[in-house]
């Protein structure tokens, strides 16, 4: 049997990176990002990348590593704060950012993976987001046409996975990962734990293995927390 299992991120990315490709990368902020794959993407040195993701890391973390290594030409994201290099490059015109409303971005990726080339949404009507896009009334309300997104490779972070590529995510680390898994021409998943095939309850699987072409167990997760908020313990 051909195996989807790879020993590490570098091997899992081998042969897939090249200058100018489009890369989807899961995560919301630094939550649920494919840390190992991002590092391997940086180490690949591939240039002029288009990155599709809700964010582009934040200072010193996540996709910032690839950005700081001058590998990114264009970004599709909904929010890029807390990222000084990106700010300065964007203001200097060195990098292109296409801002997408977060739900539109999520739906565009879901559509791309599901073979839907375009759909209509109320989101963004009457705003800069609708400029240059077709608008149209349905049920008396104006809508904007948005198109599906796919990528040359999709980098996905899951909690547990098995050798056929079935994945489960954990808590809010799920976010954009499931849709991106469907929208990569090649989808590479890193997991915290590899479980034996058959150990998942098949009703619990979030991403069926059909969407995952390569899989490996990630290492040394830092899981940096952007805003550590806590409450005081009630005294007895």
């Amino acid at each position, binding site marked *: 049997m051909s195996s989807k299992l790879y020993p590490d991120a570098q091997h899992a990315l081998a042969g897939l990176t090249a200058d100018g490709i489009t890369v989807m990368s899961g995560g919301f902020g630094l939550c649920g990002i494919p840390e190992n794959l991002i590092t391997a993407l940086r180490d690949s040195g591939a240039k002029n990348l288009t990155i599709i993701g809700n964010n582009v890391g934040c200072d010193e973390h996540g996709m910032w590593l690839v950005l700081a290594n001058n590998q990114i030409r264009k970004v599709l994201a909904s929010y890029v704060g807390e990222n000084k290099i990106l700010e300065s490059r964007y203001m200097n015109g060195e990098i292109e950012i296409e801002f997408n409303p*977060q*739900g*539109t971005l999520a739906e565009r990726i879901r559509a791309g993976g599901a073979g839907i080339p375009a759909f209509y949404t109320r*989101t963004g009507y009457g705003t800069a987001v609708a400029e240059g896009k077709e608008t149209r009334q349905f049920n008396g309300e104006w809508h904007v046409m948005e198109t599906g997104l796919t990528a040359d490779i999709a980098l996905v972070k899951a909690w547990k996975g098995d050798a056929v590529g079935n994945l489960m995510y954990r808590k*809010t680390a799920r976010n954009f990962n499931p849709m991106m898994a469907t929208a990569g021409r090649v989808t590479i998943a890193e997991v915290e734990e590899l479980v034996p095939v058959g150990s998942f309850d098949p009703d619990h699987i979030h991403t069926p293995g059909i969407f995952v072409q390569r899989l490996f167990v990630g290492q040394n997760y830092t899981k940096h*927390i952007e805003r550590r908020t806590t409450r005081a313990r009630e005294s007895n």
Partner: protein
Amino acid sequence: MAWTREQMAARAARELQEGFYVNLGIGIPTLVANVIPDGMTVTLHSENGMLGTGPFPYAGEEDADLINAGKQTITELPQTSYFSSADSFGMIRGGHINLSILGGMQVSESGDLANWMVPGKMIKGMGGAMDLVAGVGRVVVVMDHCEKSGESKFKASCTLPLTGKGVVDLLVTDLAVFEIDRRGGGARLIELAEGVTLADIEAKTDATFENCLG
């Protein structure tokens, strides 16, 4: 003379109803979570993929896989469910969230909202705000009535790039509360903060509004 942030949040919280599913934006709207009336069941939605957000964790119990849309560490509740961003915005866009309370830079008398960018300044992005105002059934904006410069933020029409056109139902400022008809029926002043007079509002408001004070 004017409401505090906490008082603005408390006024916004009066829009909550039993059984509501609610999305709270960053800033003052976050404070609404602290003033949900006792005995009222309100489920908080976080657009990064969670229904039923709980309080901040105890120190030492933070979980990097469990954050809200403001990227703060939070906790789950017994009724919590997790889902993807696509499913999360399906809830928003499909009209399943009853109430969205969010901050604003400018609101117009026709219910336009600007809260995501200032030309010439760094654009951080709109995040989920455009989806929320376009999809949620009732949108409440909480913001200061005026800029520090004194300029009214409640305007005849927004001068900043819009987040949504005709999307605001209620505006809570530190001075007053306005109902806005998204369908072009205009704005109505319905409440004043303690010690604020109609003359104050008239002096500090660029928008046209009907006075409907009790």
